[in-house]
């Protein structure tokens, strides 16, 4: 029980944001209207994705220094889970953009950056698929993961700030926090971010443990 408190916290937070996010009062803003509630679901996806990719990055470094196969497994499962969160983030963003900006894919640097970051990690998966030998696969994919992570950080955090964007917080626009996010929304938004990050890590750790069991079975059978 004492080890599982964060899973319960994550589940409670997400449950609370689903209910609270749909019921608690939001400011009425032009264009956005009620669609502002998507903030609780769209933005946490990106936070979770970044956290998961960072976990993958750290585990790749750990793998290169230790050579422990389990570190590599955790890196690949973090990437797998992170890509799912990335896809959901793109999908929820496209629906939102369709209502507020008039098109599912407006030419916006943040959208393009997110899509390219997803491509980067899909390439990581393809790279893994192309190598048969297990240790070699782990080592080479860890090298690619560490090599591409700094570029991903530049892509998502630096480039959109150099150009104008429809998203708040870019091109000199102030961030959401300064004027759109009132106290009611903060009450839901911060738990939402925390909850989805915890759920993401939970999914990742479950997939990781399934892989460990599979590995053990393969060793026994062979």
């Amino acid at each position, binding site marked *: 029980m004492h080890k599982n408190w964060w899973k319960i916290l994550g589940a409670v937070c997400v449950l609370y944001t689903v209910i609270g996010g749909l019921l608690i009062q939001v400011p009425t803003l032009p264009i956005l209207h009620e669609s502002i509630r998507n903030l609780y679901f769209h933005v946490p996806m990106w936070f979770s994705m970044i956290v998961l990719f960072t976990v993958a990055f750290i585990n790749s470094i750990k793998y290169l220094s230790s050579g422990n196969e389990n570190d590599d497994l955790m890196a690949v499962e973090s990437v797998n889970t992170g890509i799912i969160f990335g896809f959901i983030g793109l999908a929820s963003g496209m629906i939102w953009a369709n209502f507020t900006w008039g098109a599912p894919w407006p030419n916006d640097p943040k959208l393009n950056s997110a899509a390219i*970051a997803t491509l980067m990690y899909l390439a990581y998966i393809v*790279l893994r698929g192309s190598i048969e030998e297990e240790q070699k696969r782990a080592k080479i994919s860890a090298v690619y993961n*560490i090599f591409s992570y700094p570029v991903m950080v530049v892509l998502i955090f630096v480039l959109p700030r150099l150009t104008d964007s429809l998203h708040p917080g870019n091109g000199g626009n102030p961030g959401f926090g300064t004027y759109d996010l009132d106290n009611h929304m903060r009450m839901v938004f911060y738990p939402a971010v925390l909850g989805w990050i915890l759920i993401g890590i939970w999914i990742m750790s479950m997939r990781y443990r399934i892989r460990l069991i599979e590995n053990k079975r393969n060793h026994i059978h062979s």
Partner: protein
Amino acid sequence: MVLYKQVVTLLKKEILLEWRSKYALNGILLYVISTVFVCYLSFKTTPPLVWNALFWIIMLFAAINAIAKSFIQESKGRLLYYYQIASPQAIIIAKIIYNILLMILMAVIALIFYSIVFQNVVGDELLYFVAVVLGAISFSTVFTMISAIASKAGNNSTLMAILSFPVIIPLLMLIIKLSKNAMDGLDRSVSIREICVLGLINLIVIATSLILFPYLWRD
């Protein structure tokens, strides 16, 4: 000091080998020139925006094809020999410098031929040249490491392309913006931010290459 000597020796060897066969150089030059010509025959004339984008797309594919070879052409036995006499850092630095020289040469020739075939007015020619050189350097630093990774993973050219595109796109976006500024003849102070970010990314890429290559080279 030892590292410096090793880099110089390896670089001399790369250039000497290239000079003897002239395979990569002639191959790439012919590749660039025929691609430019294919584009000329299909487009005839281009508006300025397309002119700039087309140039960088030609450069991108030429660079991928040129640099993908940099680890393939070494035979297995020769790689083993290098590993005994030189440090991994020296090998990757020599490869990066050699690729930078090759890319700059190729980019300059491509630019000259491209601007003869396609008529276009460039507002700030010096800045455009700087953008081309910076682009050549960025392509070399990123693709050298990726080609090392791809060469360990069975060497197919599809893998080289899918691994390098996502990594090069942020750099390419900055380079295209910088060269567009140069074409429009904007004041140079506008472009300083792009140049700084490009330089910074290149430094990060070189640093990570130096750290990671020692893990990659041993089988």
